[in-house]
């Protein structure tokens, strides 16, 4: 317990340091821009090079992930640095671009940068909110395990439904399984569920299963309850799958656009240097 508190304190301390450094860096950049503006300097060059350096710094997280054997600190610190560097870069970006942004290439570049930046911010938001949502589910599931688990649950449900038909208590559960539960266990959830996962379908099915109780004998009651648990398990798995997929989708988008952004930034830098006459 004490070590957990100590670790929490370290994290907070680190966060404060990063925040302080970010604020100081923003202030220094603003002062430099002001200084350059007051001396007929090229403020866009200052913000441009700063932005380039900050963007390059953010790519260090990707490098760090690949260098798993180098003693350069835990990834969490690099991720935190990446986050604050991103915030700094977004502010410098706002100072760098001329408003409104003109030109097709400049619009694409700015859009890409904005998309990546806000994608990163959204990822931060998701990484802070989704664990709380997932914690509402009884068990934790790894994304990689979910398909297999879903298959297992589906097989169990099917086996349960088939076995219920052999109890000489009628085929109520089996018919219900065939009509209502089979699509639920074997098909992907609807598009609306993937956009906005709710327990409405689960609750509906469980209510219907409860309604079946009067048609079932004692053995049937046990299977109905078991089916109801499997519905819950399947819904939990679906919920985990959707929420984790969402996080991974935005992460994939963030990373994928990042490398497109690298190319666009390189072209932008070459064009600027060339058209300024700075490049030979």
């Amino acid at each position, binding site marked *: 317990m004490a070590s957990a508190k100590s670790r929490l304190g370290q994290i907070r301390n680190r966060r404060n340091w990063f925040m302080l450094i970010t604020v100081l860096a923003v202030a220094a950049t603003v002062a430099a821009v002001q200084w350059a503006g*007051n001396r007929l300097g090229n403020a866009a060059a200052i913000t441009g090079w700063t932005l380039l350096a900050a963007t390059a710094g953010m790519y260090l997280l990707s490098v760090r992930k690949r260098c798993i054997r180098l003693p350069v600190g835990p990834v969490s610190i690099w991720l935190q640095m990446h986050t604050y560097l991103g915030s700094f870069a977004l502010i410098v970006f706002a100072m760098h671009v001329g408003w409104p942004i003109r*030109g*097709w*290439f400049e619009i694409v570049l700015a859009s890409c940068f904005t998309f990546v930046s806000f994608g990163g911010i959204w990822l931060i938001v998701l990484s802070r909110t989704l664990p709380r949502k997932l914690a509402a589910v009884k068990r934790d599931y790894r994304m990689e395990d979910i398909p297999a688990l879903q298959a297992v649950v589906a097989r169990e449900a099917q086996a349960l439904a088939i076995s219920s038909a052999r109890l000489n208590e009628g085929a109520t559960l089996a018919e219900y399984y065939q009509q209502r539960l089979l699509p639920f266990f074997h098909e992907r959830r609807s598009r609306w569920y993937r956009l906005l996962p709710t327990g409405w379908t689960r609750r509906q099915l469980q209510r219907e299963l409860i309604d079946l109780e009067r048609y079932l004998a004692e053995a049937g009651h046990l299977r109905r309850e078991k089916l109801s648990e499997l519905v819950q398990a399947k819904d939990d798995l679906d919920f985990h799958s959707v929420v984790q997929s969402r996080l991974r989708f935005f992460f994939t988008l963030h990373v*994928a656009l990042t*490398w497109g952004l690298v190319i666009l930034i390189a072209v932008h830098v070459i064009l600027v240097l*060339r*058209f300024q006459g700075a490049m030979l």
Partner: protein
Amino acid sequence: MSNESSPRDVSARRWNPQCQWTCGYLELGLSCRHGPTNQGQCGRTLEKNSNAEAHASGHAKDSVNHDQHLQDLPACFPRRSLLSSRRLWTLNLGILTGIVLLFCMVSPNRESIFVPGELTAKHAQILNNKIIADRCSSCHPKSHGNILFSQAGAKQDKLCLSCHSSHMSNAALRSPHDLPADQLVALGKFAMAPSKSELQLVSAPTQPIDWQNIDLTCAKCHREHHGCTADLREIGSTRCQACHKNQFEALAKGHPEFDNYPESRPRGLAFSHNAHAEKYFAQKNRQFDCRGCHLDRSRPGSMGPIFRTLGFDQACADCHVAPIRAATIDGWTLLQIPSVDLTDTINAAGGFSDWPENARFGYEGQFSPVLKILLQSDTAVAKTLAGLPASGKLADVADGQRGSVARDMAQAIRRLIDDTARDGQAAWSRRIATTLTRKLGRSLYASEHKLINDLCAGLPPDLFRQIQGNWFKPRRPLVEFNDSHTPPVDRWSNRLVESKFRLTNQSSDLLLGNAPAQPQQPQARKPAKIRGATHVSEGGWYLNSDILAVQYMPRGHADPLLAGWSQMVSVIEGGQAAKKIPGGCAQCHDLSTDRLGTTVATNLWRVNTKPANVRTFTKFAHEPHLALPAVSDCRFCHSLTKTKELISDTNIQLIKSDGNADALPNYTSGSFHLPEFTSIKISQCSSCHRPGGANDGCTQCHNYHVGQVGLDWSTTDSASVNR
């Protein structure tokens, strides 16, 4: 790659997050413990093969028994892991981006794709024309060619100036305000002088600047690619305040108060606003309206351009044509034969035997300033001229000296007449040039020679031959009219020619001792009394036999001869002498010698209006202001100083120091040097020009690209020498 575990066992071994493939049966929960290979092949198939080989060789593995429940399933089709899918997406997106960019770079419309914003309307043709292939190169010297290395070309500014140097000749200096270093240093010292006002301190640089090495590019202030509606001349005030010392927030907040603005500088036109407003217009019971003289209503548009002064015809003629005409109705006497008392003994040997009969009744005559100038080159009379009274009248000469002065002057005039009759206009030109050279103490400029030529142009030498023949008794034969000379046929001098031929013949006969019979004289005809206004009503030279004078009839306002002589007399004899020339040029036009200095200005008679292509440090457009009802009355900004204030002690001191003390306090030509208008207040401007209102930036009222031309116009008298 092992993934064999109970599906719901969270403590079981995990997937390697770096693996590229997952089992195809994963979704069925039937994945094997081997998992796919790095190449994406089913690991169980490979294991079967290896086990078969091992079985054949007697080394079968035990592991084959672990996936007994999968024995009946065929090999799976492994699927990409999440990591691999993400990397594939990233790679594909990167490649797609690169391909699209390459496609854009080779596209014929690449300029419109990569241009960082539209050009301003005036530059838009550069990118949109179909003449030039590499259009970006028109402004960006290294924009085309090899991606990384291109030929060293001109700097961007040179490309700007290739079009703009014609109207900003000094912009190539790339220095502040397009001024050379020495002038910038001088301006800096001027602004930093301890006695300077707060307003002048504004123009002082913030920190010491190495003027010699400063290099200001166009792009420091002019930012292109901000859209077709952008104005490249809209420069933020921070750009100005980057150099200038006394920074202030806005016009309404901190701008120093104007110091005598509009500046009251000597004008070429001696016009007293106060005198006209309070006296002359009141006498005529007319309303004093500024627009009457400064607004050209004949121009198209709701409001014509504002002029510093309209021309005489539009602004002054209503009142001033008649007085000018009246002042010149009797003509202008340039030269008059003085009357000499031949009974006086001092004139006995003076050579006055041929002196006109009408000029022998005593000492009388007046010598005009023009005559004085023409005679000053005559060394024989220089001393006498110096002793002449300012009035030029013989009557004002002391009694004891009058005879000798009259004699000397008469002899000099006779020599002038003879010279002019012989050499024509060249005689006058030579005499004026000699006098002016002596006065200025240097050789003459071309403009001064031109003025002399203008003064002599139109002068008819035959008039002087007529004088010789008609007014003076024959004294000697004129060399140019001897027997061998074909008598000129001239409608101006028919009579003279006849007379001179007669004289020549007489002399010849006298030398032979054979006095011929007197030829029959033509019937003497009593000449009609000549009045200039009727005799030469359209202007020109004529002889007035009544008063024995050479006279000139001016052609009204702006007569070139009167104007030229007024200017010449003003330079040589002084401003007061110039006022004696009829027509009153010097009454309205400032011909004072202190203003002219020791030079003869060429643009003296023109209103000193700034040419449109000259940019001074300060600019102001009257038209948009006068269109506003609130400030449509000029007196909102230009309020006249009251007469009592005008002749305050301070101003009297000012005038005395300028040597024009005699101009006080009546409305005479000197009073226009006074500051007639009260200085404009900042509050008058900032009532509209404030944040949220009309633009209050520095460049709203100030020009940056001033250059040598603008600086000269700002800081020197417009009547400076035009060599």
